[in-house]
Structures are given as structure tokens and as C-alpha cells.
């Protein structure tokens, strides 16, 4: 429709008709930009959203037959009020935080990676493969690093598949990653029923991870070093995105792939890079559960960490540091819900309601604010 456009700065020709596919998703890219801007919420509004949703959670506990005083008491004891509560909260925080920082890398780069669940599932397969099958035949000190590395490679490839399909075939990664979630979940089932099944067990589970491949634990508690890895990932992802050239390029693609291409950034490669990194970090969530909590590959080890992690990333305005804080709150919510189920008989699924509400509320507030600003601008 137009003639060849010329990039005036470098003089290279860019052919509009051969626009690489990441650019085709201009609508989606626009929404990433919106996401970054709209979710740049000040702390007070985030706190307000949490207060409302915790209030509704409390109401639900009362409706389910508990009393508010009991609920508050349980919430205190399952979080900061007791050592066991703190440990439980941190154990629940670990996978959610890893997923959150993992998807932050993708989202800030303009890639809608909704496939964290799948990436952590294949990560668990990789970790079990390393910890239970390879580890006995390699030197002890290498067992844990090899298991973690395998998990990261599996997760990176799983996410990379979606990225390659996007660049090569123009497949919207949002749908691809959602579909890959379920393929991964059934892949785990396939593994524990077949190739990786422990022949000495009647349950569908893999062999136990050998001791040297386990994640070390703090003292005699159930808290494993996954939390250390998760916090390290927070720092690394922050450093990558905010302090390196690669991070700048990734964010540039996230904000505007078309402009990035005119800046001679290789949008396709950066798309793949963002997804590889994102998948590798998300996979660590699965590795942490396999090597630090379950010690085997089992079905259903993740109670939907993938989507909870996404919720954390959104609430954290896609910032790794904030994600740490929000993930700690989510860990506390989950720990509370679990104990509420044990003590008051309130279903632990309450946690999903309390976690899902604030992002819907904040998204509504952000949307309404953007609408007001737009109308004011026109008037």
C-alpha cells in the first residue's frame, strides 16, 4: 500500500509487506504498553485493593460458619505470629515468587506468557530426571546444579517453543502458552504413569530424588533453599531489565516493537530470548517443589502456581522488587487458607478468591482512570 519506507537514521530499507510477525501483534503490543502504564499503581491503591479483598475473604469465612475473631487469630498464627506460620508462608511464597519474576521478564518484553504453569510442570520433569535418574551416576556435588539446570533448560525450551511459533508462524503466544500448559500437565501424568514411574510404588509417582540432589533446608524445618534462589532471581531479573543493554532492548520491544525494528533491533530474536529467560525462571518453581517439597515427580504438585504468579506480577506493576512483597502476602494468604481449612473447615480455595479480587479491582480502577484522562484530554 505504501512505498518502501526508509529509516532516515541509518538509511536501511524496511519493507512494510515483510513486517516480521511480532509486529503484526500491534494490538497486543499496545496492550502491553497500557499494562505497564495502567498498572503503575501507587502503593495506597494496591493496599486499598487488598484491604477490600481481605474484608470479603473475612466475610466469606463468617458465611462459612467461622467467626471473624477466629479467622484473624488463625491468620496471625499462620503468618507472622508463629515460627511454623512464618515457615509455611515462606514455603508457599517460593514457587509463586519464582513464577512472578519469570513472567515479569516476558511481560515487560511484550510477550504475554500465560504458560508459567506448563513451564513449571516441565521444569519439575527436568528436576526429577536430574535428581532421581541422572544424579546417582554423577559426582555428588554436581547432582543439585545439574538437576536445576535441566529444569531450566526444559522450561526455557517449553516457553521458547511458543516464541518460535510466534516469530515463525505468527501464532499469538497468549493462546499457544495457554494450550502448552495443559499439554505439560498431561506430560507429567504420562511420565509418572510410564517412563518415570517408580516400579516399587503403587502410586503414580517417580522414584525419590536422591539425598544429594535435594535442596538443602534451613535447620530442621521444611523451609528449603528455593526461597534463596527465588530472592536471587528477583535481584537478577531487576538487574537484567533495569541495568543491562539486553534488558533495555527487551523493554524497548515490549513498549513498541515497530519502533524497535526501526532501531534495528532484532525483534524476533529478542522475542525468543525473553521467552527463554522467562521459561527458565518459571521452571525453577517446579524444580523447587520437586527437589525441596515433594522429593518426587507427582501429578498435581502445583495448585495453579502459574496463574497465582501472574496475579502477583500484575499486582506488582511488573516490578521484581514489588513482586517480592506481594508474593510474601500471597504466601501468607495461602498459609492462612490452609490452616483455616484444618481448624475451621473453611475450604482453602478461599485463597483464590482473595488473590483474584485485588487484580480485578485494580484493573477496573486503572481502566476508569485512563478513560477519565482521555476524556479530559479531548475536552
Amino acid at each position, binding site marked *: 500500500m505504501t512505498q518502501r519506507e526508509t529509516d532516515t537514521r541509518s538509511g536501511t530499507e524496511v519493507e512494510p509487506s515483510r513486517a516480521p510477525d511480532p509486529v503484526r501483534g500491534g494490538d497486543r503490543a499496545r496492550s502491553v504498553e497500557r499494562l505497564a502504564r495502567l498498572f503503575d499503581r501507587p502503593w495506597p491503591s494496591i493496599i486499598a485493593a487488598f484491604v477490600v479483598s481481605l474484608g470479603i475473604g473475612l466475610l466469606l469465612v463468617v458465611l462459612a460458619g467461622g467467626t471473624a475473631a477466629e479467622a484473624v487469630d488463625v491468620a496471625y498464627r499462620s503468618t507472622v505470629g508463629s515460627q511454623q506460620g512464618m515457615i509455611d508462608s515462606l514455603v508457599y511464597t517460593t514457587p509463586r515468587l519464582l513464577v512472578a519474576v519469570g513472567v515479569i521478564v516476558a511481560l515487560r518484553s511484550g510477550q504475554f506468557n*500465560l504458560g508459567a504453569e506448563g513451564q513449571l510442570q516441565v521444569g519439575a520433569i527436568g528436576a526429577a530426571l536430574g535428581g532421581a535418574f541422572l544424579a546417582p551416576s554423577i559426582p555428588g556435588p554436581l547432582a543439585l546444579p545439574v538437576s536445576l539446570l535441566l529444569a531450566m533448560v526444559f522450561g526455557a525450551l517449553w516457553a521458547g517453543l511458543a516464541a518460535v511459533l510466534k516469530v515463525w508462524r505468527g501464532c499469538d503466544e497468549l493462546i499457544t502458552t495457554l494450550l502448552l500448559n495443559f499439554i505439560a500437565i498431561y506430560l507429567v*501424568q*504420562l511420565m509418572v504413569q510410564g517412563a518415570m514411574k517408580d516400579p516399587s510404588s503403587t502410586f503414580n509417582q517417580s522414584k525419590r530424588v536422591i539425598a544429594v540432589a535435594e535442596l538443602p533446608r534451613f535447620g530442621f524445618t521444611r523451609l528449603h533453599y528455593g526461597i534463596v534462589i527465588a530472592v536471587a532471581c528477583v535481584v537478577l531479573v531487576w538487574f537484567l531489565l533495569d541495568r543491562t543493554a539486553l534488558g533495555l532492548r527487551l523493554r524497548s520491544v515490549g513498549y513498541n516493537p515497530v519502533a524497535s525494528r526501526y532501531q534495528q533491533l532484532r525483534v524476533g530474536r529478542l522475542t525468543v530470548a525473553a521467552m527463554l529467560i522467562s521459561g527458565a525462571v518459571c521452571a525453577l518453581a517446579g524444580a523447587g517443589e520437586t527437589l525441596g517439597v515433594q522429593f518426587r515427580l507427582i501429578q498435581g504438585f502445583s495448585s495453579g502456581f502459574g496463574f497465582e504468579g501472574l496475579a502477583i506480577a500484575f499486582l506488582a506493576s511488573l516490578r521484581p522488587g514489588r513482586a517480592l512483597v506481594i508474593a510474601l502476602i500471597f504466601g501468607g494468604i495461602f498459609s492462612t487458607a490452609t490452616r483455616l481449612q484444618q481448624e475451621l473447615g*473453611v475450604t482453602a480455595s478461599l485463597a483464590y478468591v482473595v488473590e483474584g479480587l485485588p487484580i480485578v479491582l485494580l*484493573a477496573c480502577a486503572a481502566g476508569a482512570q485512563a478513560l477519565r484522562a482521555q476524556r479530559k484530554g479531548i475536552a
Partner: protein
Amino acid sequence: MHNLVESFFWASAIALAAPILLAALGETFAQRAGVFTIGIEGLMLSGAFGAAAVASWSGDVIVGFAGAALAGAVLGALYGVAVVLFRADQVVVGIGFNLIVLGATSMLRRGLFPTGMEVPSTSALDRHELPLLGDLPWIGEVLFDQSPIVYALYVLTPFGVFLLFRTRVGLLVRAVGDGALASSAAGIRVPRIRMWVMVVNGTLAGAAGATLVLVNAGGVFVDNLVDGRGYLVLALTMFARWHPGWVALGAVLFGAADALQFIAQATFGGHVPTAVFLMAPYLLALAAWVVMGKRSRAPSDLGVPLLA
């Protein structure tokens, strides 16, 4: 491989396609109008729970089915309030909505039905052979010995095509999705149309959930019953290029992939693990997505809130 042409296999495929197609028809209209409903998973789940709950209270599956459609309509409208009226980001709301519905339905199930739901007779929605047409060889067994829901879809799908491409309503829906700002400037009330589309989408998704629980699962609701079929619906809507006819064809393909497990023993001799069959519809969706991906052109304003 002769099992693959047996009427039993294709009859199962069509039966299993019904819930997917119901939801995908609504999602097609929603996406044509520019609303990308990731929350379709949650809408279907709420419909499934609503159907099981109302059916168990009233003892009548038809009432349960209607209750599910109503629950879907109400939640679809609420979803619309967030993404259409408040202009909230559609992906974010979808993720949050699905989490909330998953938690709420699981809580309600345990809170309201601690001893389990009473499953009423689902015979009203079971297979009913049509007179004359049902006597046709093969075709009769495949197409005309089905649940009334499937018969409803034989009418609903062509009506959807007609509505979308041959009426003023369809033109408005497509205009709103392909140029929301221009439509708005031309005096079309974009939010109103998108709200109505979301109510329809919710109703059909609720009915799809009801079909899943009352027909496919024999009336037994379990937590997270929908288990990703909502995402299959999203994929189907998009690789079928937002056309109800192609959507129907794709839904039958999914049904066939789902039905493979029924003939597995006879065809593959039981050597193939069940997980492969559970995975099959998702693999098929991915393959279709890869084949069709590049050629499809989405409605321009799909997923973008109207800022005007």
C-alpha cells in the same frame, strides 16, 4: 483403523463437541465485538456449578440448565462491567476472574453441599432419536440420535452465521470490534453493544458448562470441572477465523480427538496411556493454531478497551 469410521465414534465426537461449540459461538461474537474473554473458562465453570447446584435443589435438569444459563448471563454482565464499562485490561481481568470463580465454586460446593450433590435424573438431556431422520443409515446414528442440546446447536450455528453476516445486529457487532473509535464517532454506542455481547457470551458459556456437567459428566460436579476447556474454546474461536461455521467444524474435530479414548482399547490395543488421549485435544488445537496462525486476521480492536 476401521473404528475411526464407526458411527459410534463420530456420534461421541459430536456429543463431546457440543459444550465446546456452545461456548465458542458466544466467544466468536464477543471477539468480533472486540472483547477477548479469557474468563470464558470461569464463565463455563460457574455455569457447570450453577447447573449442578440448581438441578440438585430442584431435582430437575432442565431447571438446572436454565439456572446455569442465567448464572452465566449475570456473571457475563459483571465481567462486562469490568472490561467494557470500566475499560479494565481484558487479560488481567480474565486471569483474576478465573481465579475467583475457581475459588468460589469450590468453596460453595463444600459449603452448600457438604454431603455431596444429589444428582437428579439427567434423562431429559440424554440421547433422543429423532423420528425418520434417525433411521438413516450411519448419518442417522451419528447426527440424529443425540442430546436435545446438540439439536439446538444444529439451529443455533446457522443462525449465528446469519446473525453475524446478514443482519444489522451482526454488522454492528463487527463494526464495534473492527473500529471501535470510528463506530463511536459514527454514533454507535460501543459499550452498550459490547455489554449485550458479553451477556450472550456468558449465557452460552453457562449453558456450555451445564452441558459439561449434566451430559458429559452425568451430573457430578467436581472442583475445576472445566479443566482448561475454556482455553480450547479461545483457541478454536481464533483459528476458526471468527466464523461460526468453521468454529462448528473445529469443535467436531476436538470432539473426535476427545472421543479417541473410547475406541482406544479396540484400535490401539490398550498400549497407549490415557494421558495421551487427555492431551489430544490440546495438541490438535496447537497444531491447528500453527497451521492457521499466520493467515488469520483478527478484528482490529480485539482486546483493546475503547477510550472515548
